[in-house]
């Protein structure tokens, strides 16, 4: 399908027509191209998530590569990085190739598997990092996310070893002993509610250790879901010293605070936990000044029964793909901290760069694969279950008014979302296959 998108505003504020021919950006319209009216809409480069839990293989009752890909497309994403904590764990070439090929086959988004740092996420022996890097999945990001690589020697070795393959370790910073049975942010509220505390120091101490290790061995380091003002200070200090560190914040940590735990409603239970308002504001300004590089969703679907219970018994995690762009608009754009070019940076070009994903360096460049998110920033909606497209219903935003709406998502030149609705799975899969064949011939 060839496309013309007319009159959409680019992230820099200018308006233009965009032409997509044979999956790629072109200088002019192809004959017979389908026209999408972009007037009043913002055209963003396709969004890239560096932190998604697709749950397949092993936890298909929570999410599959297909359902997670559909949730991603609905949220305006054209690429996601799938975390390794599946069953079996993505610690061998076989598992990452399976996830990669499922993603390619379904075609809603580019699925980039993340490999486990350690075998079985057990934190004892390195997984087959070289095999995963050299596999058809071409893994460049390695993470034990969900667990911290807490052993200092193993972390040092991982940082060094991954350097060999040009990859990066994405650390889930959580000192395990300081967070045994932890349930929510440690502070006055956890004391009052009688919920075991997850202290900020448990995150900050690991980040401090790891930036020093990264400096010592001259490796790159990425910090997942930074959640505290103290962590921001450590990251800022490390960057000032020239250490090769990048950091992400989740949409929910940019908007929600620990006060929500007062309800004991476990849809607000997440790891790292929601923090204080001071932390939310520190994360926003760190994202605005570049100390935090990107927004990543930590989309963590769970079946209903994992959340319909007492707080202590509930699973950690929230779904985030479908709401991410709206939440970033609310927290960063509508608050005046961000222009749309900044949104494009933290949700597309920067996560692609960290993840080693080519084609996102320059938005809308002629000849590159066409990945576009067409967004109506002036829309407003009361977020409901009907806005979710994955299997997980565990969103913290139910009943909240959120700005914006994804109107269309274009992945490799074919639409995955049109008029705000997902395109049929068969049509998407067939378009994906066409693009694949054209690319391999070229």
């Amino acid at each position, binding site marked *: 399908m060839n496309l013309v998108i007319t009159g959409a505003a680019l992230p820099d504020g200018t308006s233009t027509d965009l032409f997509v021919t044979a999956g790629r950006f072109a200088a002019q319209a192809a004959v017979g191209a389908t026209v999408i009216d972009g007037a009043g809409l913002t055209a963003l480069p396709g969004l890239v998530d560096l932190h998604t839990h697709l749950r397949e293989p092993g936890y298909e009752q929570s999410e599959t590569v297909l359902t997670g890909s559909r949730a991603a497309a609905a949220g305006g994403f054209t690429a996601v990085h799938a975390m390794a904590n599946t069953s079996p764990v993505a610690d061998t070439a076989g598992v990452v190739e399976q996830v990669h090929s499922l993603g390619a086959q379904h075609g809603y988004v580019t699925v980039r598997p993340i490999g486990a740092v350690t075998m079985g996420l057990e934190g004892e022996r390195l997984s087959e990092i070289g095999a995963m890097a050299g596999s058809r999945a071409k893994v460049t990001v390695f993470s034990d996310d969900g667990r911290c690589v807490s052993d200092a020697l193993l972390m040092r070795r991982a940082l060094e070893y991954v350097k060999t393959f040009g990859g990066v370790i994405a650390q889930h910073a959580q000192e395990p002993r300081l967070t045994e049975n932890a349930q929510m942010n440690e502070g006055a*509220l*956890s004391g009052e509610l*009688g*919920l075991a505390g997850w*202290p900020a120091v448990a995150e900050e101490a690991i980040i401090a250790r790891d930036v020093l290790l990264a400096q010592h061995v001259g490796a790159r380091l990425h910090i997942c879901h930074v959640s505290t003002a103290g962590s921001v200070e450590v990251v800022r200090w490390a960057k000032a010293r020239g250490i090769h560190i990048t950091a992400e914040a989740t949409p929910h940590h940019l908007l929600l605070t620990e006060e929500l735990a007062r309800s*004991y409603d476990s849809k607000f239970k997440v790891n790292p936990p929601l923090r204080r308002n001071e932390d939310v504001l520190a994360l926003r300004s760190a994202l605005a000044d570049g100390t935090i590089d990107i927004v990543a969703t930590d989309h963590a679907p769970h079946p209903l029964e994992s959340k319909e*219970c*007492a707080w*202590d018994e509930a699973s950690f995690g929230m779904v985030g793909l479908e709401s991410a762009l709206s939440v970033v608009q609310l927290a960063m754009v509508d608050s005046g901290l961000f222009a749309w070019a900044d949104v494009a940076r933290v949700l597309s070009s920067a996560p692609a760069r960290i993840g080693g994903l080519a084609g996102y360096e320059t938005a809308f460049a002629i000849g590159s694969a066409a990945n576009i998110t067409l967004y109506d920033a002036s829309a407003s909606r009361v977020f409901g279950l009907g806005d979710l497209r994955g299997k997980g219903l565990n969103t913290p935003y139910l009943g909240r008014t959120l700005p914006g709406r994804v109107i269309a998502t274009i992945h490799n030149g074919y639409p995955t979302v049109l008029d705000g609705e997902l395109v049929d799975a068969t049509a998407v899969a067939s378009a994906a296959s066409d693009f694949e064949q054209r690319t391999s011939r070229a």
Partner: protein
Amino acid sequence: MRHLLSTRDLDLEAAVGILDVAEDMADVATREVKKLPTLRGKTVINLFFEDSTRTRTSFELAAKRLSADLINFSAKGSSVSKGEGLKDTAQTLAAMGADAVVIRHSASGAAQVLAESDWIDASILNAGDGTHEHPTQALLDAFTMRKRLHGNASRGRDLDGLRVTIVGDILHSRVARSNVWLLRTLGAIVTVVAPATLLPSGIDNWPVTIGYDLDAAVDDGPDVVMMLRIQAERMHAAYFPNTREYSREWGLDDDRLRRLRPDTMVMHPGPMVRGLEISAAAADSSRSTVLEQVANGVSIRMAVLYLLLASEGGAL
């Protein structure tokens, strides 16, 4: 009252109201036939996810003295699994037509989750949720203090100016939390004494004075000393070096007992570990209110069940 989930949301009028109804209930225990027909036809379920023979028995007696049908539903050890346990059990009890559910659960907030869910419509009575609250324990403690102070002239009184010192594991104690909020509402002045490891973070914002030194607290001449139990699982988690040191620093031993005023009340929510947080002499002294607390517990629970079930939609 629709539910009783915490003492934090009780205002002065409601708190004194419960204590006054409990006075009436206490009178029932002195009669030859210790029973009222008030809750005949009502079904009360004791839903205990954690063992607690004392609290369960106290609620059982309270419900029976009010002629309610009481069923003990022990969820512990049954096939109740993680996750769906609370919801399925609640829906089962709703289907059985429970009017009130007395819930004890190891997770903080479990009673509130039940009350705010659409799984069950019954009145929810929190009989201890994790390390959050245990409101009937605080009410019976306040009732006991008021009774010792004012005897038969207790009705209508609060605890204005009473100096209460709570000693021990504040961090993990739902009894301490419920007591702090209720005692503040009733006008008492509360001091907590514990090693810093057993104080919750943010306690600086609680309406209490904080101390580490039990000797200083004893010599300060409090009206009430409330000793909290040290649970076995804390002893191996680096909260303090060992029980000998804990006992030496924060136990109410014979020497500290002697230094208290003769009319200082010594309270303990039970079960006590004699020789650890409280000496045998302290537990058995005339200052000790331990057995009065047990007796008053039945009166308080009768009062709460009565207020939840007998006066639906209106005040007493």
